[in-house]
């Protein structure tokens, strides 16, 4: 990623705003941007969604392939997430092989979905030991104005919940909806001007410190956590964030489940 211009000036500005508990775009500390979720937006994907949060726009597409089950789990299908943060989505993203940031994005989104158990892997089995469905989730950034993590996670669940297993095209039975039993949701917090804020803008990310990502399931069970970038936080700070994440994840879940 390119070095952001003049981060020190930006940091000073963000600290001054924080003193009055303000943010760049006038939001409260834990106020998210409006989230718009659309599904069925990609004609060639078996499930798809577009999520817009302010000037951050992402797509998610679900494709299916037939795989040979792993020898230790002959009756299980597979699930794979790949995050594409191509240079189309912002001046700071460069061309080339996936950056560590893009790989982290894909892996954190993947973990939240996988560990929640929302996809029944046994249900993806076609012929034990020989054939099973592999669900491939591709998340793709169109416009990055911060918090790609939450945008990706939201789009991912909206796409999975509308995905159709293309049995007829692969000649292995009828088309049927991909069973998704839960809706894990992610909330991300960045340290900006000394305190944590929810749903950071790109400029808040550049001028901010460490970040924390929390994925919660329907029953508020924790399914993935990730702390990124340099910095240290206290248990009290984490408690405050977790409390907010519980209510916000529920709101996002309602949005995705309609």
């Amino acid at each position, binding site marked *: 990623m390119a070095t952001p211009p003049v981060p020190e000036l930006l940091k000073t500005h963000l600290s001054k705003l924080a003193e009055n508990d303000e943010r760049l775009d006038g939001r409260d500390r834990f106020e998210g941007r409006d989230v718009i979720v659309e599904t069925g937006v990609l004609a060639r994907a078996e499930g798809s969604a577009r999520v817009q949060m302010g000037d951050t726009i992402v797509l998610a*597409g679900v494709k299916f392939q037939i795989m040979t089950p792993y020898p230790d789990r002959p009756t299980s299908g597979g699930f794979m997430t790949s995050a594409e943060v191509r240079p189309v989505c912002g001046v700071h993203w460069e061309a080339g092989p996936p950056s560590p940031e893009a790989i982290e994005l894909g892996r954190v989104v993947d973990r939240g979905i996988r560990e929640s158990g929302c996809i029944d892997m046994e249900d993806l089995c076609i012929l034990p030991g020989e054939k099973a469905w592999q669900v491939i989730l591709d998340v793709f950034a169109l*416009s990055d104005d911060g918090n790609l993590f939450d945008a990706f996670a939201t789009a991912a669940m909206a796409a999975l919940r509308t995905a159709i297993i293309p049995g007829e095209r692969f000649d292995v039975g009828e088309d049927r909806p991909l069973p998704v039993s839960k809706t894990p949701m992610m909330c991300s917090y960045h340290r900006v001007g000394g305190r944590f804020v929810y749903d950071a803008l790109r400029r808040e990310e550049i001028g901010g410190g460490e970040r924390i990502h929390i994925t919660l399931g329907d029953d508020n069970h924790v399914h993935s956590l990730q702390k990124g970038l340099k910095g240290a936080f206290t248990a009290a700070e984490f408690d405050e964030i977790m409390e907010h994440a519980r209510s916000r994840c529920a709101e996002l879940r309602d949005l995705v489940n309609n």
Partner: protein
Amino acid sequence: MGGYGDVQMIDDNGIRVDGRTAGEIRPVSINAGIIPVADGSAEVIWGTNHVIAAVYGPMEAHPRKIQKQDRAVLDVRYNMAPFSTTDRIRPGFNRRSREISKVTAEALESVVLTELYPRSKIRVEIEVITAEAGTRCAGITAASVALADAGIPMTDMVISVASGKINGVVVCDLNKEEDNYGEADLPMGVCANSGELVFLQMDGDLSPEEFQIAWDYNMEAIAPVHEMMIDALKRSNGGDE
């Protein structure tokens, strides 16, 4: 080029599988300014094709060895998203996308006034979101609109259209189904005002007469698409005259 001669793709009245006549292009819609963080952007929806272009710059060109002392370099990337086709595409560059990126850059360099920005770089990112035959043409068209949306000075805008041949009949703008049985493909990039060509490829088999018809079909499609490009730019930039 499949060349399966026994599949009927055009009926006795000259109507194609999707109801078009031979010289007709698919429905097209164009929007500019669709990526808020980009300096310029556009989407071209051409039939089922959905292609997005973003422009960043002019900006400092680095590493320094890519700089040109007398002009800007156009850094063009054409890429197909993994979910853009029926069978998923593995992410990453391949020979096809590199070639398309190269010829697209050369087409756009012919109209962008690069000499106004010596030692700088203009990034043009073309992403195919949904593919249905003719993505390179839609990409060039989208990139032209995105460059204009970014306010990059150009002598002209490039519109790209392809014609081809199915069942021995020359037709304009093949869709995916027709392309699978296509016997020739002639994509062209034409400057809207001057009528000059800045992009040209061809493969397949065309007689001199067929070649002329394909050429003429492409030329006829330029003006209506140019109108849509101008309209898109007016809508996104708030003008209406």
